[in-house]
Structure formats: structure tokens, C-alpha cells
């Protein structure tokens, strides 16, 4: 996994509550067996009409958000299906940071496993960011994970917090499985004392 430290980018808004992972990546695109190439299908049914033409009203199709790596969203972002194809699609499309008042649990977890930083901020703060994006064309933010703060170069400074362990994993690009395997002796010990009635007779 790529380490994540700091990023400065244009901010794209997605002004809807309860954005589910079916909307992020519709099921017809879940059949690939790779982790890559999902960006082209991100928000597919909102981005494209039934003739596969771009929908000009959809936020991400507006030219000013073309190179955005930061997405601001509303409550309960990423709810529904556990499909990790959702963060894969967001990352492949270019998003490295998602800011919202709340995230669904599994999605939130999946982001960290893929080097995406999901940031939870109070609803009023997120609302302020939506207003700033609407007011200033090309509005940019810098998200600095080493110092836990967001700035806009115009005097705005927002501190944020992320679970300390996950922050460390992101900063170092750590492989979770490697970390767990360091506890091999404890896993083996646990398995030795495993309840007999849970052993599955094949």
C-alpha cells in the first residue's frame, strides 16, 4: 500500500445523504477479478445516462472537479454492501481523501486498507466546506495527516483526528497481514486450546 502523508487538491462536492456502495459502484461491474480498473465505473448510473453519455448535471462531471482528489460528502457515506470495489473505484478515479459527517462502518474500514483517508468532521464544518466549494471556483484544500489538520490557504484551519493505529498504517503504508503474522505464537497457542465442540468434522 502507498503511504499517505499530505495532499493538496481541488475539492469535489457530492451533496447527498446515505450514498450507498451500490451507487458508488453498481453491481454489473463487480464481476472483474482484479482490484484495478474500477474508476471508469464510479457512480456510473449518476455519471452517465442510459445511452452512456455523461450527465452534465452530475457534480463530478463538471470540468472544475476533473482533477479533484478530495471529495466532500454527507452523512452515512458508503452504506450498504461491503464491496471493497467501492474504495477501489474511488481510488482508481483519483480520490485519496473523503470528508463527511459520518461513514458506514465497513466502507470506512475498507478505505484504510486501500490508502484512502476518510475524515469525519462535524456536520457544521462539512456544511461550511460545501459553501466554500460553491462560493470559490477551484476551491482547494490541503490535508496533512502528519499534523492532523486541513487548511485552505485562506486562513481556514481544521484539526481532525483519526484512529492512531490506522493513522500510523497509512503514514507508513503498512501491510496488515504482516503485522498480524508477528503474533503467530499467540495464534498458535489459541488454536491449541480451541474448544473441541467448535472443531468441524469434515
Amino acid at each position, binding site marked *: 500500500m502507498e503511504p499517505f502523508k499530505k495532499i493538496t487538491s481541488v475539492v469535489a462536492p457530492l451533496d447527498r445523504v446515505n450514498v450507498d456502495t451500490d451507487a458508488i459502484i453498481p453491481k454489473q461491474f463487480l464481476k472483474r477479478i482484479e482490484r484495478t480498473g474500477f474508476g471508469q465505473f464510479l457512480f456510473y448510473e449518476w455519471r452517465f445516462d442510459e445511452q452512456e453519455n455523461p450527465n452534465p448535471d452530475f457534480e463530478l462531471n463538471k470540468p472544475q472537479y476533473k482533477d479533484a482528489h478530495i471529495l466532500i460528502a454527507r452523512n452515512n457515506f458508503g452504506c450498504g454492501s461491503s464491496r471493497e470495489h467501492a474504495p477501489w473505484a474511488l481510488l482508481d478515479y483519483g480520490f485519496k481523501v473523503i470528508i463527511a459527517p459520518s461513514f458506514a462502518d465497513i466502507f470506512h474500514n475498507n478505505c484504510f486498507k486501500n490508502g484512502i483517508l476518510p475524515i469525519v468532521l462535524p456536520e457544521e464544518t462539512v456544511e461550511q466546506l460545501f459553501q466554500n466549494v460553491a462560493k470559490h471556483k477551484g476551491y482547494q484544500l490541503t490535508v496533512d495527516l502528519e499534523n492532523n489538520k486541513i487548511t485552505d490557504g485562506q486562513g481556514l484551519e481544521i484539526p481532525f483526528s483519526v484512529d492512531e493505529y490506522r493513522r500510523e498504517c497509512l503514514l507508513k503504508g503498512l501491510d496488515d497481514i504482516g503485522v498480524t503474522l508477528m503474533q503467530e505464537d499467540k495464534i498458535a497457542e489459541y488454536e491449541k486450546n480451541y474448544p*473441541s465442540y*467448535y472443531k468441524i468434522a469434515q
Partner: protein
Amino acid sequence: MKPRTMFEKIWDNHVIYSEENKPSLLYIDLHLVHEVTSPQAFEGLRLAGRKVRRPDLTFATIDHNVPTTDRSLPIEDPISRQQIETLRANCKEFGVTLYDLDSPEQGVVHVMGPELGLTHPGKTIVCGDSHTSTHGAFGALAFGIGTSEVEHVLATQCLQQKKPKTLEVHVEGELPTGVTAKDIILAIIAKWGTDFATGYVIEYTGDAIKKLSMEERMTVCNMSIEAGARAGLIAPDETTFAYLKGRRFAPKGEEWEKAISAWKELVTDEGAEYDRRVVINAREIEPQVTWGTSPGMGIGISGVVPAPEDFATENERKATQNALAYMGLEPHTPITEIEIDRVFIGSCTNGRIEDLRAAAKIANGYKVAPHVNAMVVPGSGMVKEQAEKEGLDKIFIEAGFEWREPGCSMCLAMNPDVLAPGERCASTSNRNFEGRQGRGGRTHLVSPEMAAAAAIAGHFVDVRNWEVKEREGKAHGTV
């Protein structure tokens, strides 16, 4: 010792390692695998030169992508076929048991696991599927994970987990006739919203829950994820033990006795405290119908479609406006006046034998409305076989329903069972998101009874007033 909740006991039993400010390392007792969320995980193992640590605790099936029509024909969609063949090859390479399409036990992963007796109280169970919460009905700590975590469990049989908080959802009182487990969970989500349980493990308690059968409990726990919960739990009791006894992978003989005494210890201690508690009265619950594009957008059958201005916040008003536009509904329309085009009875929420019995009881002796296309998709091969033994297939077919092969089918429409744009469906599944059952498709979530009644009437009706026709001969006495 401080009194503990059931969740805390299961958690404590499985923590291998913990350190302050770090996630705990949790041992996983059962890992269920399906074709959609596993290929990248197996590929990761291969690239790192790792093995599946406990193939004996790992079970796979093919459910999301499979056609529900003739199984002897090749799968037409080449990408679906590739995904299925990839799972076959991976199971073979890594030594994982696969219930393949030709297996009589193949089925939706959350229907199959309990049927095989793999799901036990007190276990930790994961699957790359959010509806893994279903297994919590047995008092197992069961939750959905992403593909990176699937790889993690395959490699280590453990997961790094931050301890969730506990939430008691107390369902008091008696459930009225015609109101089902599906209505309980839909009413809970409608009342408190789709994120009220985010960060929590729910334990469902109360008289109404205790009286539910195992299959009904699975329906309730299944949709815990639609409330945002990490997992849903119900205390194991005699109903649980009776369901499990004698199943293929249930403990036998002396081990069974040992298991029962351990499982009885799991229930929440008197005086244990939950982080949060909510109460709902079962007597106040009506048969539910969702009207919008989020499972929380639901209402009782006697209600009307709400208007955006009925809601307190700007975000809710906007969401309601979008939902009504997508659903093609006008505010204040009585729910019973909403006409439907399609009916889907099945899924990990409501594709079990009791669900099919309940739907068949309503359908018996009636005909599906001429403008409605209705299908019944059993949750597994075992459900299908049992239903056919009881003659339920005949009731459905005579009434004009299609009787299909098992799979996830139109719950998420990855296979050819898809809604056309604008088609309106009464569905016993779990999600009414935009495009979930097909682009432009409009999903209303309901119980199996409500779905069957809607198929016949052509619009939603209050199943509490349904005239059930006695089954002639009553061959097996089940309907």
C-alpha cells in the same frame, strides 16, 4: 466479575492479543466465501506466497452471479462465468470446501451456513458480504468484511478489530397476527434511521424476539446492517438448540452436551449494561412497505407516501424529493394504491422455507394479477427440495409465479434477473437503493406475505385482511 453482555463474552473469548490504542486481534471461527468478493483476496495470497491457514474453517459457495434458470446450460455472461470459474480454481488450489452449482446444498451463503449447521452460538463468523449479520440470530458474532479483510482472514484466521459499542434493541409486547419479523426490522430502521446503530453491535431482546423462530430471527439480524450496525445478536435458547441439533456440522454426542452448557453461559448477565438502549412495542407495528430509496424510508401499510416538507432537516427533505422522483411517486398517495409490475420472493433476508410457506399460504388458490410478473427464488437447494416435498412449488406455479433455482437473484441483480427501467417491484430482499435491482428499477421492501398478496392484487394490500384459502387435501399439513 463485572456482569457482561453476550457481545462482551463472545469478544473476550476470541481476543488473542490486545494493546492499548490498537485494534484487538480477534480469532475467527468460521469464514464463508463467495465468488464476488474473494478473487482479489486469493490473488493477494498467491502474490505473497501465503496459504489459507485454516481451510477446515473456510467454506465457499457460488450464489451472487448464478442464473436461476436451467442449471444444465452454460452461464451466458462470460464475465460471470470467469468469476465462478476463478472461485472453483481458487478453492481447489487452496483446499477450501466449495458447494458448487451441482451440489444439492448450494445456496445463498447466509441460508446455506445455518442449514449445514456451521453457524453456532458464540462463534465469530465473517464473510465478504454485509449480510453476514444474519448468523447473529444464533448468538454468533457475525459481520461483513471487505476483500482485504477476507485475505487477512484466509492468511491468519484472525482479524484486527476495534471493539464496537453495544446497543440493546428491546422489542416488547406481542407481535400482531399478519405482522412478521421483516416488519419488526423494517419498522426499527424506519423509526431510527439507517445509521442509528453505526459503531454498535445490536442485541435484540424482549418477548417479541424470544417468540420468533430461528428463521424469523435470521430475518431480523440480517438487516442489522441496514441500521448501520456492525452485527446483530439474539441470545441462544431452546429454539436455537432445537434448530441446530442433528444438522450436518453441529456437534454430536458428548460434544453436543459440552456445547450446550457453554452456549447457555453466553447470555447477557443480569445487571450488565449496554452503551445504549432503545425500546419499540411490537403491538404498534403494522405490515411495512418502503416507499423510497433507503431502507429507512418505510411506513405501515395504512399510511401514505410522505411529502418532503414532512421532514425536519434540509438534507432529509432533499433526500425525500430525490427518492420520490426516482420512485415515480406523488406525496400523500395511499400505500395501498401503489401498483406493481414485478414481485421477487427470495434472498438471504426472506428465502428460507418458512418464508416460502408463508408466501404460499397467501398465494394458495389465487392467481397472480395479469400485469404482474412474479418469481420465487428459494434461498438454497435444501430449501427448494423441502418446498417441493411440501408441494409449495405447485401452489406457486398454479397461482402463476415462476419457480426458480436458488441464488441471490434479483436481490442485487448480478445475474440475468433484473428490473427494467421504471418497473416497480414488491421485493422480500433487503435494499431499495437506486438501481439495486436494475437501473431505473423501483424497489419496495416487504415481507413474503405482503409480496405474495401484492402479486395477486396487483398493488399493495393489507395482508392482515387477507382471506386465506384452505389447502385441499393438506398433503403435509404445513400450509
